[in-house]
């Protein structure tokens, strides 16, 4: 299925959608968004790209196999949980580090929560794309 409109539009949109998905992932803790929603946006971006340019091209654009991606994501989530244990607290306790805070400003929040959400993002992207690519290739 090749459509000039789709492939032209996709070329412009895919990159924007991926940036948007990361934006959604990062803002998720305070505004609507988060790993799950961001992941879905990224999936749609890659699915559209695969639709217009072929699955092989989409796989190349992803660099790693989707299954690897979802397992890395699961690893991130578990690792985020283990950090709390290193401090003697229960599994999955959130740990926060505020970098460069001044008065009135807490600074850049780095947290295991963010790592966990990135894990969710990667699992969603990897697992769904794995199925979509396999289905596309079968047909």
């Amino acid at each position, binding site marked *: *299925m090749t459509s000039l409109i789709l492939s032209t539009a996709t070329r412009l949109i895919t990159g924007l959608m991926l940036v948007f998905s990361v934006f959604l992932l990062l803002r998720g803790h305070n*505004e*609507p968004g988060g790993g*799950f929603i961001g992941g879905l946006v990224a999936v749609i971006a890659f699915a559209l790209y695969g*639709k217009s340019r072929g699955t092989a091209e989409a796989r190349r654009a992803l660099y790693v196999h989707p299954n690897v991606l979802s*397992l890395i*994501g*699961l690893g991130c989530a578990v690792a985020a949980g283990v950090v709390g244990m290193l401090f003697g607290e229960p599994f999955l306790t959130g740990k926060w580090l505020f970098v460069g805070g001044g008065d009135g400003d807490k600074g850049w929040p780095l947290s295991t929560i963010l790592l966990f959400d990135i894990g969710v993002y990667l699992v969603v992207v990897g697992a769904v794309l*794995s199925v979509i690519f396999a289905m596309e290739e079968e047909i």
Partner: protein
Amino acid sequence: MAQFAEPASAHDDTHAAATGKRLRKLVAVTALPAVLTLIFLSLTPSIAGGDILRWAMPWFPGLGVSLSLYVDGLGLLFALLISGIGVVVFSYASVYMEHYAFNTRFFIVLTLFMLSMLGVVLSDNIITLFVFWELTTITSYLLIGFTHDEAKSRYSALQALLVTGLGGLAMLAGLILLGLIGGSFELSDLRAGTVDIREHGLYGAILALVLIGCFTKSAQFPFHFWLPNAMAAPTPVSAYLHSATMVKAGIYLMARLHPTLGGTDGWVWALTLAGGITAVMSSVWSLYQRDLKQVLAWTTIMGLGTLTLMLGGGDKYAVMGAMTFLVVHCLYKATLFLAVGAIDHATHTRDRDELSGLRRAMPKVFALSVAAALSMAGLPPFIGFIGKEVMYEGALHAATLPALVAGFALAANAMMIGAAGIVAVAPFIGPERSWPAPPHDPPLAMWLGPAVLGTLGLLMGLLPFWLADPLIGPATSAVYGSPVSVHLALWHGINLPLLLSLATFALGYACWHFRAPIRAALERTAARVPLTAEQGYDHALAGVKAFAAWQTRVLQHGSLRGYLGTIFATIVILTGWSLVRGNVLPMQTNLLDATGFAWAAALLIVAGTATAIVANSRLTAICALGAVGVGTAMLFAVHGAVDVALTQVLIDILFVILLAIALLELPPLDRFRPRLSLANGFAAVVSLAIGALMTVILISITSLPLDTRITEYYEAMSVPAAHGRNIVNVILVDFRALDTLGEIAVIALAGLAAYALISLRQKTLTARRDDDGSVQ
């Protein structure tokens, strides 16, 4: 310079290298059991002095589960047997397993087994004990099926796993009941506790469940059949797991629970009958076997039966007899298995009809098997003789029917003498045979260990006060529940046990002398047994498989429409029934309160649904369903659930993309055009019913006052505790992160599974296409 080396010295070098490699492997595999043995030996004096060592670490404190170790006389005796015989078996296996593949795997599993077995006998917490117990079942499964390219090994491994695993589940139920009623999951608390479990109404259930676990693990009749099949494992495994250690786990638990559960009529009768029948039946069948390993397997069942019989007796002499016989059995049985392994290694057969005259070719193996056989036959001055005397003493003091117990023991012991002759004497005497490769004694690592065990059997008999009393005394006290002073001796004067011993020798000699006619008679009997326990197992397994196949055919028929119909109909019936039964239908809602925007969204949903039903093309239907999704998302957005609305929209987009992929492959829609048919009628009824049900449920829920405590908590805690203003996200990744972790694990696994299924289908399709191509 290497190329100028003499061939002979090169050969020497490789030989030296091979010896060095062997030695390194020997040291590597025996180091752990040796160190453990030394540690346990060093504990012996203090434990014999009455001390008890304890160590505990909380594991799941909320459930009363802790990793607690408890070393008393009983635990130490078992731990010493496990680690000590471990040293012998590990060193033996380092040579024996040389020609097998996967040596590393073998020793890893064997080591895991040893550690789990030590865990069983040293655990104080019954849940931890159960975990270790199941670990021995799993490692045993892996070891029985070690030569997994043989169907027989796989069958036997699965059989052992199913029988002991199911028994273990029953036992878990019993142990949990025991812990709940006793008020503690620590065995030491249960023994010291104020609650007498024996008085409780559920005592019978606890006893039955726990004993099923013990009987399956320790191969008591009618669960005995898995043990002879477990001989499919390599011989060191048979020697270690299926004679000396693992099968004793059931015995251990019965001994351990003796002070807590023992002494009642139920206990005495269950153990006496199961043990007695097992002992006599298996010693009869041991005389029938041709394969020497099978003879030993059946005599192992006899040993386990005798131990159960003695633990049923309950008298302190019976307990003492059980503990002595435990040591005796481990020593001689490990030795005999390892000797049979050496014979097998050298001659490549274990058939008793093909083996004779090996005494000149294998003098060392001959000597140590005779030593073990003398102990097995219970002849003085071996420890086996003392064991038998104490056992008769205990049988005569048995709480119920001492004559019956003594009769069981006498019959089993007499046939044991016959079996000892068949295994340890018959292959070595008689005419010498010619072998393809001349048999010879095995290397040091294979005979030294068994020789040490044989010598120990002799020394313990000669010096019981020095070697046996410090081990058996504390163990007996621990099982009996109060201190017992143990003084074993070869000579007790002329008394009833001695006379019984003499009768045993006479009967045993007869068994040995008439071994050929006995076997012929048994062969005729075996042909006439209508249903063996193993056939029962096979029938049960076939029944389970047939049932599984039937229900898969009925439930997993492969029609998506059928699945949805079944699921929705079930929901309607069950949920609807509980709604009506619970009378929770307060319909107080004011639809007019809804805003115009909500009404518009609702209208969009209804219009989309109607279009999807009557649509003529798939594209129209998909777009209509997309409109339904957007309508739902609008409703979420209006009510402030922006995240949910976002997710809904994204999922809908994804859904359309997925369907667009599948669209190309689907048959034309005309085939499913709306028309009146039974299937469509059923679908319509179910759809309307589920729609109506959801409406009723939603209205009922919204008409009830909403409990906002949890919402308020999250609202209050979101920023101070989790540094986030988006409550939905904070709940997902922080407050309830464990749930999310579980969910993404499911997503990742589902992705992997779907990927595997699709690529597998792709492969078969490609292969089929290639086949078609080649035909054309």
